[in-house]
């Protein structure tokens, strides 16, 4: 059997002395889409940030490998070059930094890492415009500063748009569906569907079944108290929707 694209083993992490992740295990194979659900404050965003390399968190135990490489050893930019992408729960506004120049620089940084030359400007623009259209974004976004003055939904769409242009190997999407209207949700779901590919793994953090109605996840995991408490197929999401998280806690207690 081939190595999973993402392999998280017994991950413990803390921030400012608070233990957040307490022995988390997760494996995602290339070509799969996994959903992570779980109550507020359970550690979902923490996990997402640790995967992208945020240094506010201290990993005290465990390991994370991506394509067999030790992810935790890499700087955030190296991870991006290697193909890790985080769609933020709260994308940051950066006034003064042009959205499209950032994206182009991101593409070129990755190409450089792969030993390729800079992307042809015309090719880049053609690709960008086509993907913006798919995401229902107006071309005026090309000229704007990164996320500056974007509505909540526009920010989320911009994240997916960046993801489509960067074509990462591992997509971590942190509540990209929150704050989207019904149409935008469909657009984002289509974007994710389009990203599904045999050489890509997608991890979706979500609170809602409705995104999963559009995207059929291969696996659903419940994260609570810093651990994956339960995993199952997409049926698990339905059961959660119906019974809430208490049901799992109850089950846990039963089996303990």
């Amino acid at each position: 059997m081939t190595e999973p694209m993402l392999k998280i083993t017994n991950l413990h992490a803390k921030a400012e002395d608070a233990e957040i992740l307490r022995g988390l295990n997760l494996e995602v194979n290339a070509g799969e889409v996994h959903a992570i659900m779980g109550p507020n404050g359970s550690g979902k965003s923490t996990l997402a940030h640790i995967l992208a390399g945020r240094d506010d968190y201290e990993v005290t135990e465990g390991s994370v490998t991506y394509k067999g490489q030790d992810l935790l050893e890499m700087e955030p930019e190296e991870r991006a070059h290697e193909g890790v992408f985080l769609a933020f729960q709260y994308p940051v506004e950066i006034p003064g930094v042009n959205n499209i120049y950032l994206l182009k620089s991101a593409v070129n940084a990755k190409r450089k890492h792969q030993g390729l030359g800079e992307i042809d400007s015309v090719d880049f623009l053609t690709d960008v415009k086509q993907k913006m259209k798919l995401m229902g974004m107006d071309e005026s976004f090309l000229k704007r500063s990164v996320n500056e003055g974007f509505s909540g939904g526009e920010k989320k769409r911009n994240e997916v748009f960046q993801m489509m242009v960067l074509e990462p190997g591992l997509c971590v999407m942190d509540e990209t569906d929150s704050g989207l209207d019904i149409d935008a949700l469909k657009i984002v779901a289509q974007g994710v569907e389009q990203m599904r590919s045999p050489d890509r793994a997608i991890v979706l953090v979500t609170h809602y079944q409705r995104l999963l109605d559009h995207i059929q996840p291969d696996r659903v995991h419940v994260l609570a108290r810093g651990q994956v408490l339960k995993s199952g197929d997409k049926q698990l999401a339905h059961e959660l929707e119906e019974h809430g998280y208490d049901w799992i806690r109850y089950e846990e207690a039963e089996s303990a």
Partner: protein
Amino acid sequence: MKAVDETATRMLDRLQGERPGDASDWIAGLRRDAVARFAEMGLPNQRIEDWKYTSTKAIAKRDFARPDAAGATADANRIEALRVPDLDAHRLVFINGHYAAALSDGEMTDDAVRVRNLAQVLAEDPDALKDRLADAAPADFSGFTALNTAFAEDGAVIEIAADRRVERPIELLFVSTLRDEAIAAHPRILIDAAHHGEATIIEHYVGMDDPQNLTNAVTEVHLAEGARVAHYRVQRESRKGFHIGSVHVNQAANSRLEQHNVQIGAALCRTDINTALNAEGAETLYNGLYLVNGRQHVDTHTRINHNQPNTTSEEAYRGILDGYARGVFNGRVYVAPHAQKTAAYQSNDNLLLSGKAEIDTKPELEIYADDVVCTHGATVGQLDTRALFYLRSRGVDHETARGLLLYAFAEAAIERMGVEPLRNWLQGFVIEELPHADRLQEFV
């Protein structure tokens, strides 16, 4: 005359001599009074609250000579290189405070504006300055203002006609050059906009060949009803030089002032920006940016007087301080008891890039009316780590990401400036000051 201290005596002695306008009784009287005021006041010292954080000792200790008008020459190509590039402006050039006709576009008179150099007006038409010179700027505003009033001999007089819009900006380029001895220049600028007149004026101070000179400039602005003036001050003096500048504005009903204050150069820079909103509907925007490092010291004191109801002010100053640089920001807002419906917004944001850089920032609100909206906020900090992480997560390396955020911080001030060539130039200029300038170019 007996002066308050030896420095004042020495400075007064050094500056003696004939000046254009001496023949006019009222100009001569104004100067005499100002000399007397300076003799009493001397240079400001740190016992004065407004000068608490800024020592003038380095200025007092030097013996600045008075530059002669004959020395007002410079290589035209070098002067050209100092200008704001691609700016289509009517330009007057001053070398060490003296008007350099050969380097300038000259006097301009059309139905919208009249632009002359001050020495000419003082010599030929001094009465035209009556009730206007030393009106908005009282001679005793500070020892420096007194000194300027006493010894100003050149500068610019800009008169904007009623109901006219001056299409091209007016650029006043003040070049400080290296001479045998350090010199002091006291340029004086008078801007008078008649009702509903509109213009953009750029004062641009720049040092050439690292002189240790002093520039002590005073600007007075009168805005009649409905007038709109965008006034820029760009200070790029020599890192060894001293720059003292004050701007004093009187605003009538429904007038609008934009004052952009960019401070980059000088070992020591102090600017005072003062506006009186004297009638309803008057509004003011103060926009400031200071970038300093090494042992530079930059001090900005601003004042906005809301003297009448329904007046508005918005003030945003930003600074980036590195090395051992020291910054001071003091923003005073006064709202008179009957000035209801005043709106005043103030912010001062600072980035400290080294543990040794320092900023003292203080809002000073004196609000005597009750139906007003006044807000203020000051921040002193490092780069936003969330933004830094966001950029890195997109593959931008750490150093470039840092540079980009610094640039973006400054850009928030630059983008408020309406003159596009100036904006473009400042953007490039700011980038050059940042680490890894080459890598930042592609983002902007």
